[in-house]
């Protein structure tokens, strides 16, 4: 190594020591090469064969490079492999001797030759380059590698030092890492889901607990069920109603659906299923069996309780005992049905009566006409002297009177039957004063003969909405009654007045006549009722008056005092 002339013993000693060290090193190297522990390559140079090893490197580094788990190689400028460690030979599945001295391109797949050449070019040019490419192992498999190149001067020869790292393991790790990441993500998601569900469950339970705390205190039967309809709570009232304790007996016995009245069950359960399915509020009236085995009517109601997402968390329902109410309604219904039936029956009876009156008057008319005709025929046949003779003359006269009386009664009956059919007769504004004047003319003989004083004052309400024909009949009947039933000891004083009262017009007819006992008032307006037998009357006048007033939506009232007079009040609704 050094050819400097030796000067001192110390220097000599040192030089000796160095040489000895070099000798030992050379000896070790030869030993290592001989044992195959160190790779070496003999290259024929200009100065004879040269041996390439990692000689000159520190022993520690050499060992490191020899034994490290990365491939390492040195390339000459013509890409001859000057050195290769055992690891790289292993990665390429070749013997060291096969790699060393070879051209490295033999391990580069055809498709990557250009890339590899580029890497080399860059390495030589810039002193450094890096890349990834697959290399072909001896048995033809492609293995991914990363290569890192550095230009080094080895034994004064420029070489390209290449570190070759097997990437297949790293790729696997990357794949595993991706898998792990994916797995972790999934776990995170599942966790989040679980947390959310847990939160929802807790919220649900909280809601149920809150609901049940409230429901326990109310006076109705109350319950909650899950969104699928499974019962989650029943309050005390329910257990009181069914006469069982919570948890007592088989669970099925506590369920409402088992306690429904058989007649109500199908419709009730159908509606409940419908509500569960659609989320629509539930409302039903049904009978539920209590602890004593009796059925009571309940109003069942349930509403879905929803979370902030609008999902049904539970159903909260109540049963309200409406038994008495329902029975009362049924009684009212029943009552109304009976009333309706009665009404129909009465209407039928009325129609029958109408028909009877019509038929009776009709059927009686024919024979009385015949009697009258026969009487006339007989009169025509009788010699005049006979007909004037006693007692033929009075007999004939009484027969005529009876026939006439009979005919009048039948006329009145016919009028009554006509009146029945007059319901809803059109009304018109009628001048009351004119009607009274008219009636007064008809009654003039009676007024004259009784010395009656009739005062009329209709100025306060001169017009009445009524059928004119009927109004005449009403006025006629009231005035003629006032005159007919006069007190024998005084001249009749009759006053006829009108006044508006609310929406009605009141016609008042007051007399100072016989009057009657108030206890008979209800009979006054009956058909064929007669209070006095000394006066000629059919007993039909007031019946007709009341009928006409009632038919037009008005009413009639009367007050009377026996011996001092009677007042009739007629309210015409306007």
């Amino acid at each position, binding site marked *: 190594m050094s050819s400097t002339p030796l000067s001192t013993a110390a220097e000599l000693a040192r030089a000796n020591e160095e040489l000895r060290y070099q000798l030992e090193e050379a000896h070790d190297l030869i030993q290592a090469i001989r044992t195959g522990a160190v790779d070496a390559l003999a290259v024929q140079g200009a100065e004879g064969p040269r041996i390439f090893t990692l000689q000159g490197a520190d022993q520690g580094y050499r060992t490191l490079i020899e034994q490290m788990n990365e491939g390492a190689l040195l390339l000459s400028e013509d890409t001859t492999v000057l050195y290769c460690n055992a690891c790289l030979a292993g990665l390429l599945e070749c013997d060291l001797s096969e790699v060393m001295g070879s051209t490295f391109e033999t391990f580069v797949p055809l498709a990557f030759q250009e890339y590899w050449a580029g890497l080399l070019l860059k390495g030589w040019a810039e002193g450094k380059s890096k890349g990834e490419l697959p290399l072909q192992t001896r048995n033809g498999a492609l293995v991914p590698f990363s290569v890192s190149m550095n230009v080094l001067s080895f034994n004064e020869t420029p070489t390209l030092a290449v570190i070759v790292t097997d990437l297949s393991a790293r790729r696997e790790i990357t794949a595993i890492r991706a898998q792990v990441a994916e797995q972790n993500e999934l776990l995170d998601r599942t966790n989040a889901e679980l947390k959310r569900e847990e939160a929802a469950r807790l919220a649900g339970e909280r809601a149920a607990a809150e609901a049940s705390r409230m429901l326990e205190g109310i006076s109705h039967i109350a319950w909650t069920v899950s969104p699928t309809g499974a019962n989650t709570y029943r309050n005390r009232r329910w257990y009181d109603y069914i006469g069982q304790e919570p948890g007592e007996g088989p669970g099925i016995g506590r369920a409402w659906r088992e306690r429904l009245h058989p007649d109500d069950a199908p419709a009730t359960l159908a509606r409940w299923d419908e509500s569960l399915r659609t989320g629509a509020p539930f409302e039903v009236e049904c009978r539920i069996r209590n602890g004593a085995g009796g059925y009571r009517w309940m109003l069942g109601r349930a509403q879905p309780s929803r979370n902030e997402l609008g999902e049904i968390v539970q159903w909260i329902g109540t049963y309200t005992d409406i038994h008495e109410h329902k029975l009362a309604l049924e009684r009212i219904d029943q009552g109304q049905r009976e009333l309706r039936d009665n009404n129909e029956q009465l209407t039928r009876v009325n129609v029958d009566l109408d028909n009877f009156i019509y038929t009776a*008057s*009709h059927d009686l*008319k*024919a024979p009385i*006409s015949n009697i009258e*005709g026969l009487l006339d025929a007989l009169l025509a046949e009788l010699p005049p002297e006979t007909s004037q003779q006693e007692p033929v003359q009075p007999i004939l006269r009484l027969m005529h009177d009876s026939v006439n009386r009979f005919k009048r009664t039948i006329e009145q009956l*016919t009028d009554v039957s006509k009146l029945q*059919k007059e319901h809803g007769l059109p009304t018109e504004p009628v001048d009351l004063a004119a009607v009274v004047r008219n009636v007064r003319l008809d009654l003039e003989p009676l007024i004259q003969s009784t010395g009656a004083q009739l005062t009329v004052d209709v100025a306060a309400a001169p017009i009445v909405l009524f059928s004119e024909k009927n109004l005449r009949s009403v006025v006629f009947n009231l005035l003629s009654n006032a005159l007919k039933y006069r007190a024998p000891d005084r001249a009749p004083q009759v006053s006829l007045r009108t006044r508006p009262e609310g929406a009605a017009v009141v016609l008042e007819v007051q007399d100072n006549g016989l009057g009657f006992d108030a206890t008979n008032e209800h009979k006054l307006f009956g058909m064929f009722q007669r209070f006095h037998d000394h006066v000629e009357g059919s007993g039909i006048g007031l019946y007709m008056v009341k009928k006409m007033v009632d038919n037009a939506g008005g009413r009639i009232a009367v007050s009377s005092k026996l011996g001092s007079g009677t007042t009739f009040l007629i309210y015409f609704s306007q």
Partner: protein
Amino acid sequence: MQKLTCALLVDDDSTTNYLNQLLINRLQITDKLLVALNGQEALELVKIHCNEATPDCPALILLDVKMPVMDGFQFLEAYNELPLPEKDAIIIVMLTTSLHPQDVDRVQGLNIAGFLNKPLTKEKLNDVLKNHFDRHLPE
């Protein structure tokens, strides 16, 4: 006054028939007076005597409403179906006591000359003669 060729009384009440016969005979309205006790009998008479114009075909029919077997309305309905040559020459007057409102409607579509309220009198008969036969009873 020129008498009617023939008249027909239709009534189930024999007293009514008796009285009406008495009246018609007394007033000398016709020489030939037929009597039927219900619509069915009247229909038979009309079929027999009116298929051809005979002296026995009634010029005037006084028809009661309420009768057994066939009432006045049923008679009129059946009569309307008959294919008679000189229907216009037959005057039908209904005799009633009083008409039920529902009967009034029923009468509207039927081909009759008019109504008379029972009992039949000289005055009513005179009106019929004046209005439908252009003749009147001697005063």
